[in-house]
């Protein structure tokens, strides 16, 4: 097997276009349109040469095998190992949900930081590199903090990480270990996010989910590309994904659409289903209402990684869900723990609270008849349970210690 080689060019970020007023702008570390403040998106050359299935399949197993759909020209130079997580058949979970087939997109095992945020950070860091930025940062509920801190350590960037003060200890440690400037902010994620919008504006750093956001978000499309390729170049009936800011669902829709347009797969975009916690479900409620205005909420849930009360991509996520024929569901904290356990006990995968939300929402959607017995369903498991062990600790029963004697084991067998 050979690796296809294209001529090497210096890395450059693509120009931008406002998704609202459609004005064009030069490539820049900027996330909103100077004219209308709408979101900026990278503009791809419609006439660019695209690889076929064989060429993609021959490339190294990372998200950069899809580089023609990522917002750069030239070769990526940073975070080259991100992506290409397993798509795992989960027949016992399928049986529990009552669907024909269930597969787990296992980003809980992502390199290097055990969440899907490694995808978006890989794209954002190449944008930072292309713009000559040396200081990067983020506002984070934990997983993005881990991903930015890890990538910054590996790639030699200075990192400023802003997080709510009450994150899970493992997520704090899994950022601090890499040696960033870790700033704990008294407040919610939404408070942190506002602060980072002002930080990006004032200091000119590359805040990956603020002023590098146009490039950052595109990395999430690679989950869709991988699902399609790993299924043998076809699309599933349905995909269930957790929603915080709403970007992942939005970009899954875009990614499936781009592979359909490129004729790498055929059929229609899978039905997209979004999952949130009842204590923070502004996008679910938007989908249910069917209007176009996010009503922000004050989050109150154990699913801290999804606790964004004012989701930036809520409207686009809702539109992607409804236009695909999908729906959305919210689950309570008890159901979230049950979802984590169901995933673990049927697949051997320990997902974080967002995974519990996704699995529990899938079960609720199946019970409501939105997922049917004929469906092939992919669940996006986006983060690792080792980061949120406190969420399940109270639900697990541990036996009393025993003496190292065979008789004590024999006594246990009888109970």
């Amino acid at each position, binding site marked *: 097997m050979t690796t296809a080689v294209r001529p090497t060019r210096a890395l450059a970020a693509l120009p931008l276009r406002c998704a*609202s007023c459609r004005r064009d702008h030069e490539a820049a570390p*900027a*996330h*909103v349109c*100077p004219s*209308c*403040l*709408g*979101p900026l998106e990278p503009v791809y050359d419609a006439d660019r040469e695209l690889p076929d299935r064989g060429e993609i399949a021959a490339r190294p197993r990372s998200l950069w095998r899809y580089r023609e759909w990522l917002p750069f020209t030239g070769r990526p130079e940073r975070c080259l190992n991100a992506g290409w997580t397993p798509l795992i058949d989960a027949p016992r979970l399928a049986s529990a949900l009552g669907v024909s087939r269930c597969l787990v997109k296992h980003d809980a095992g992502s390199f290097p930081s055990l969440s899907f945020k490694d995808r978006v950070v890989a794209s954002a860091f190449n944008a930072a590199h292309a713009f000559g930025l040396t200081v990067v940062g983020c*506002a984070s509920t934990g997983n993005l903090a881990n991903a930015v801190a890890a990538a910054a350590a590996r790639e030699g960037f200075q990192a400023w990480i802003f997080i709510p003060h009450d994150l899970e200890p493992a997520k704090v440690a899994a950022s601090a270990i890499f040696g960033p400037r870790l700033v704990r902010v008294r*407040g919610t*994620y*939404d*408070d942190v*996010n*506002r602060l*980072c*919008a*002002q930080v*990006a*504006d004032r200091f000119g750093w590359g805040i990956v*989910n*603020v002023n590098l*956001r146009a490039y950052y978000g595109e990395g999430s499309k690679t989950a869709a590309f991988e699902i399609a390729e790993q299924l043998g170049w076809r699309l599933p009936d349905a995909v269930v994904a957790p929603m*915080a*800011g*709403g*970007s992942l669902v939005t970009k899954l829709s875009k990614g499936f659409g781009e592979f359909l347009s490129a004729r790498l797969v055929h059929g229609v975009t899978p039905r997209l289903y979004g999952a949130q916690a009842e204590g923070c479900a502004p996008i679910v409620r938007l989908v249910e209402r069917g209007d176009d*205005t996010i*009503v*922000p909420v*004050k989050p109150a849930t154990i699913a801290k990684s999804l606790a*964004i009360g*004012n*989701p*930036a*991509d809520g*409207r686009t996520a809702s539109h992607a869900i409804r236009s695909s024929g999908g729906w959305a569901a919210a689950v309570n904290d008890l159901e979230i723990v049950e979802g984590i356990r169901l995933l673990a006990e049927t697949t051997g995968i320990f997902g974080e609270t967002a995974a519990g939300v996704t699995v529990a929402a899938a079960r609720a959607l199946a019970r409501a008849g939105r997922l049917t017995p004929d469906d092939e369903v992919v669940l996006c498991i986006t983060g690792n349970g080792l980061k949120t062990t406190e969420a399940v600790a109270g639900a697990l029963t541990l036996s009393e210690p025993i003496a190292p004697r065979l008789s004590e084991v024999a006594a246990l067998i009888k109970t």
Partner: protein
Amino acid sequence: MPILSLPSVLTPLTGGEHTIPAVGTTVSEALDDVVRRFPALSPRLRDENGEPYPFVTIYLNDEDIRFIGGFDAPVQPTDELSVVPAVAGG
């Protein structure tokens, strides 16, 4: 006197000013006062129906005004109103 703080992307509409003193006892009055001096700002603060413009979030000190009465929220002389682009984070 309350202060209105703007992101850089809006400062071309205010002659380069990031912070503008405002007169008023509610968010609405304070914004109206600033818009009288800088009319080009108006459509970036409220839509044509006077509702919140979807691409900005307005904070009164540390609180999103949508949680405290919206444009009718009372404003004290020492308060800071901040306009922040809504599309960020996640």
